[in-house]
């Protein structure tokens, strides 16, 4: 028999993902990245070398068997691909979209040594989006109850993993929609809310009950959860408390925290006011302060609400921006105007106390600070003002102190994070575990999920050995 010629695979070229063109997308809230077609996914999947000791898995905080699912995509067996992913990851359509892959799985991919790494996130997204009837593992109930506080990525992951182990899990969520930052923070154009809903439905299909409008510490305390028969509590309440700069004029009308601005738009759908009831100021000239993902999201959202100019004010340089590269590029393509090495000193209002300008001082980079980044220092006398009618402060968030205050014996550390033991994520209170942003401070979806996974294992062990 003549030997078939081996298929030629060009491993150098990473298959690009189609996107809405910038001029188009700034006029709508639809998703920017359009996903792979079947052919594109298969071609990209074929680039994988199926390494014997795959480094990529180490880069994934929830430990997805990446080469295995990629192989299934290469073979066109998409259902099997998503099954493999879901063994480890309960929220693949979300992670495929918002994971900072370049510093996670893809950073470790061997292909990246010479060429571009395998597009693992895009393939994960593809598999999740192409899932048809939804694979669901069999669950055998063990008759024991666990409570989860918060329905962000940490809470959903802990709940799903515990449900799969057989626990009856109830999530208590303060807001009227589950998802945490995934629904109130990350905009529709990066993560459509229908996708989040679908993944939440999957978690519910495992038997997890979600009680909305339950503010733990107010509606019910952690002590009362134990009284109600929950044998352990996982706290995944995130880092939702917005920081302000404490400069003059910060309470003028037109100054928003990024949390408020994004919550109004995403959770409350203010971009469709008056069809939806929640109002939002549609600024013409908007200043966004900050250089992280949240700042990029706020800036791009302001643009979509119709702003002529959106200035992104950041006190260091572009190199130092903590935002993902991809987000910075997207923002630039959409016409966001970067004002780097500048720091606001005050916000100026008119007689009606509406924002009319922001004053900034120029900065230069000095010696590296404790984080290794070069610290910005003011250049005296370099103040300038910019005419703006809206200011969005996106300089960070910290854990909301509500739960710690209402729970005797729950120890907190710097910036109000809950103190936990390494690996087990046990807090100072017996039976209470915690993970995600409430423990690490504002971080990433995948790190929150990774911690929640570890905590779920520790909870299982704790209850079994009780």
């Amino acid at each position, binding site marked *: 028999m003549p030997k078939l010629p081996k298929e030629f695979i060009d491993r150098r070229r990473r298959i690009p993902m189609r996107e809405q063109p910038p001029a188009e997308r700034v006029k709508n809230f639809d998703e920017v990245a359009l996903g792979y077609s079947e052919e594109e996914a298969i071609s990209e999947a074929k680039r994988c070398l199926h390494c014997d000791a795959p480094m990529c898995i180490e880069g994934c905080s929830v430990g997805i068997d990446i080469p295995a699912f990629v192989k299934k995509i290469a073979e066109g067996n998409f259902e099997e691909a998503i099954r493999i992913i879901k063994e480890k990851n309960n929220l693949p359509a979300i992670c495929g979209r918002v994971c900072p892959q370049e510093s996670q799985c893809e950073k470790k991919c061997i292909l990246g040594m010479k060429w571009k790494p395998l597009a693992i996130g895009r393939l994960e997204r593809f598999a999740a989006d192409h899932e048809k009837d939804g694979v669901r593992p069999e669950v055998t109930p063990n008759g024991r109850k666990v409570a989860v506080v918060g329905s962000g990525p940490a809470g959903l992951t802990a709940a799903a993993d515990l449900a799969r182990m057989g626990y009856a899990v109830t999530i208590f969520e303060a807001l009227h929609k589950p998802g945490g930052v995934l629904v109130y923070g990350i905009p529709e154009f990066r993560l459509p809310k229908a996708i989040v809903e679908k993944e939440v439905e999957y978690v519910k299909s495992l038997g997890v009950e979600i009680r909305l409008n339950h503010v733990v510490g107010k509606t019910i305390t952690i002590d009362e959860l134990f009284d109600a028969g929950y044998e352990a509590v996982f706290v995944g309440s995130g880092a939702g*408390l917005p920081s302000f700069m*404490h400069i003059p004029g910060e309470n003028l009308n037109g100054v928003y*925290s990024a949390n408020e601005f994004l919550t109004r738009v995403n959770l409350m759908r203010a971009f469709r006011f008056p069809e939806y009831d929640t109002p939002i100021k549609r600024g013409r000239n908007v200043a966004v302060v900050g250089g992280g993902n949240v700042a990029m999201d706020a800036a791009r959202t302001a643009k979509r609400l119709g702003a002529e100019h959106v200035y992104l004010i950041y006190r260091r340089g572009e190199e130092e921006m903590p935002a993902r590269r991809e987000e910075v590029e997207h923002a630039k393509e959409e016409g966001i105007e970067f004002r780097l090495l500048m720091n606001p000193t005050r916000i100026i209002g008119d007689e009606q106390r509406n924002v009319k300008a922001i004053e900034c001082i120029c900065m230069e980079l000095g010696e590296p600070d404790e984080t290794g980044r070069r610290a910005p220092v003011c250049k005296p006398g370099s103040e300038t003002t910019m005419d703006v009618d809206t200011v969005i402060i996106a300089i960070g968030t910290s854990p909301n102190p509500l739960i710690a205050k209402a729970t005797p014996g729950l120890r907190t550390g710097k910036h109000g994070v809950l103190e936990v033991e390494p690996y087990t994520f046990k807090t100072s209170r017996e039976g209470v575990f915690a993970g995600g942003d409430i423990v690490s401070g504002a971080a990433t979806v995948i790190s929150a999920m990774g911690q929640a996974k570890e905590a779920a294992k520790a909870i299982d062990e704790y209850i079994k050995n009780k």
Partner: protein
Amino acid sequence: MYRIVGKKEIAFNTTLFEVEAPEVARKALAGQFVVVRLDERGERIPLTIADFDRGKGTITMVVLSVGKTTKKLSRLREGDHILDVAGPLGNPAEMVENSLVVCIGGGLGIAPIYPIARELKARGNKVISIIGARSASLLFWEDRMREVSDELYVVTDDGSYGRKGFAVHQLLDLISSGMRIDRVIIIGSAIMMKVTSEATRPYGIKTIVSLNPIMVDGTGMCGSCRVTVGGKTRFACVDGPEFDGHEVDFDELLARLRMYSAEERLADELYMQGVGACQSCQKNL
């Protein structure tokens, strides 16, 4: 979904709702509020828990129809449902013992001052209450307030009922009559709280106000509700809603309450057109 089990119009454009929310009722204390959302496209608005019945598992809210959401709410009927009710939120009213407390409720503020006066009275304090409104048609709960007060004074701006004038006039009379007041609690419109707090400042009487800035989540997550108190930014939903009236920057609060006037007017107009209500008299049809 939270079922409306009782509804009653208790004054002009002022509706009382009793809503099934057992978990809120179980924990509610005087001074706290809930955040409600009527339907899928609704906004989140805060409403004070004016009363609660732990046995029945219900909470009572008194709502003044001022814009789209409160008007929409006032059209719901017994048996209808409110989509979301979250709470109890905010800190409970600060309680004192062995004191003479003057409780002032202006207009809709009568509803939130009532459970506070009742609790103060139950703890054995001497409670002197002043309730007031623009006009007699806007007054309510005189009987309830009388029950929980040692003395009750009623004022209306136009003199259509009780004494003609503002609550602050009555308060100043009490002060000048030599009454030794330990504390004054004022709940009403921002401007009324501002004026009334000013009156007690020269006498150094501890004065508490319950602030009503624009809120979204009500849990400390957005900062929409920020107010300046004693020169510091505070979030009214988690640090308040009660603050020292002498420390509050009322002018800032007044400005912030107007932040969405244009949008609110538009929403209201579209809504009133939609339901065919009369624009000029603004009465709920």
